[in-house]
């Protein structure tokens, strides 16, 4: 019986990490129709900033994380203004080529600056230990990830659905021409939403650093994993990404418990089945 509990707990924790990293890409891909394959590179930048602040600059963890997120958002905004805005109307394949080039560039830069070693983000005492759940222990950091993941999901959904910025964003994506004619500041919306996507990626990189250690090649190593969650969840659908991340997380964890010598075969079989069943997204008819 405890195996089922274990699968559920570990699966949920792993799924939340996948969600936190993937939701930013789901927004840029779905709501902005921009194929940003350098999304994981922004997650890496966020993670590296936090690691640098906490370790070298001796900042407090709870201070360093927001600072790192803002730094990543700033990098996202700058790149968006300088280069990326010329790509919105370009063909999807051109966006793929450019963002893969950008990922290569950021990998090389990180490798040159911080060297090839793995960067660890030392956790504050509160998070470093494990919490006893009765039948087993779970690292405290995982609980933070689950909590943060749910908060991000609720926050992002609320912003997109309820706030004026959300309305502007959805309008700008559907038809930027009409949106600008209604006085919606298109450029501001596009830049802000890309920066938000980068910020979410950075936040995911920091929270996920426990499971996905930060090293220069991070940007391409977990790209497939993130794309899978976004595709199964349905582009632009936050709830979809959450559901997909948890389902895939549980399946991957179950295969670890029950049939680990089959590698990630079951993960991709499940992905193919889910995508074939609901091509537009898990929660869309």
């Amino acid at each position: 019986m405890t195996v089922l509990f274990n699968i559920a707990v570990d699966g949920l924790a792993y799924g939340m990490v996948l969600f936190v990293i993937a939701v930013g890409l789901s927004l840029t891909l779905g709501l902005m129709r921009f194929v940003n394959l350098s999304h994981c590179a922004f997650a890496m930048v966020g993670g590296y900033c936090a690691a640098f602040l906490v370790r070298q600059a001796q900042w407090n963890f709870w201070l360093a994380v927001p600072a790192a997120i803002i730094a990543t958002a700033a990098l996202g905004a700058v790149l968006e203004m300088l280069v990326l805005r010329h790509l919105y109307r370009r063909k999807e394949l051109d966006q793929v080529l450019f963002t893969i080039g950008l990922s290569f560039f950021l990998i090389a830069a990180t490798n040159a600056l911080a060297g090839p070693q793995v960067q660890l983000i030392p956790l504050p005492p509160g998070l470093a230990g494990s919490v006893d759940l009765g039948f087993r222990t779970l690292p405290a950091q995982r609980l933070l990830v689950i909590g943060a993941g749910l908060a991000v999901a609720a926050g992002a959904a609320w912003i997109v659905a309820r706030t004026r910025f959300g309305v502007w964003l959805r309008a700008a994506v559907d038809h930027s021409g009409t949106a600008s004619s209604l006085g919606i500041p298109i450029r501001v919306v596009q830049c802000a939403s890309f920066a938000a996507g980068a910020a979410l990626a950075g936040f995911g990189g920091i929270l996920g650093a426990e499971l996905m250690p930060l090293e220069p090649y991070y940007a391409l190593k977990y790209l497939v994993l993130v794309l899978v969650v976004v595709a199964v969840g349905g582009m632009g659908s936050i709830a979809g990404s959450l559901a997909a991340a948890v389902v895939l997380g549980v399946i991957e964890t179950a295969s670890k418990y029950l049939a680990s010598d089959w590698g990630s075969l079951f993960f991709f079989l499940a992905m193919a089945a889910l995508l074939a069943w609901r091509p537009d997204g898990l929660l869309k008819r």
Partner: protein
Amino acid sequence: MNTSTTLQGPAKAPSEARHAAAPRCRPAWRAPLVVLALGALACALLPEQLGLMTRIFIAALFVLSLDLVVGVAGLATLGHAAVFGTGAYAAGIFALKVMPDPLAGLAIGIGAGGLLALASGAFLLRYQGFTFLMLTVAVAQIVLSLAQKARDWTGGDDGLSGFTVGPLLGHFAFDLEGRVAAFYALAVLVLMHYVARRLVDSPFGLAVRGIHENRARMAALGTPVYRRLLAMYAAAGAIAGAAGALSAQTNAIVGLDSLSFALSAEALVMLILGGAGRLSGALVGAVVFTLLHHTAASINPYHWLFVVGFMLMAVVLVSPAKAWGWLRRRVGAAS
């Protein structure tokens, strides 16, 4: 049809109308012959780089097959390594367990690539766009997991090696310098380029291009859209299988990297670099990217990613057409 009145357009002299240019396909053997000439010239000029030349010819053949799927049929895929690797493993296992003859191995590779493309395409082609793209990734990863699991057939992580490839046509043994390997790869590339050119210029190729540009229109003309796409996907799979077989035979080893996501992504990057849809763009992209990667890596093995990353971004921002134009103006102005 009993009416033959010609609907005269606005005041056009009849003779001029008759001579207006009709679209004509260039002869299918022309481009492959150019490739043969350039390839042979390159091998002659760089006798010490034949290993690199072979890798370029194989990469070009693989990107050519990808162009049939992405450029001609309009199906963006990130899982084309599946058919390349399957062709490579089939040829390798065939050489190990059955017969070392290269041409037989090549045929096995072509068959394996084509069959896998047919089987996976039957499932994949029910979907379109981003869903299709991600499903191709899933198929490639599933094939990779199976190859890793079937350790006693594929050698798993250590790779499939220990098979020897017999002399080509009975008496051209594969030598150290790689001369036979280079010309063998070039010959297969030229042959497959000719086949691909014929495919694209045929009524079937025209129908697939039509589907790429407008599925609704082709359906309205009665084209069996699904069947045409599947046939092109299988043909591309066969050509990719040939490239895989060449890689297995010229390297005498097949690694799991031949099924990896990185290989599919790199091939797509080469294709977009060279320009999709013209077949020649695929070859140019493969040559340019491989040379760029090779020279950058040999100059600075650690940070060559800077150069490649920067180049990819530059190519998208300043499209090659504009770049050539700017270059020509500069050269024009100077001379």
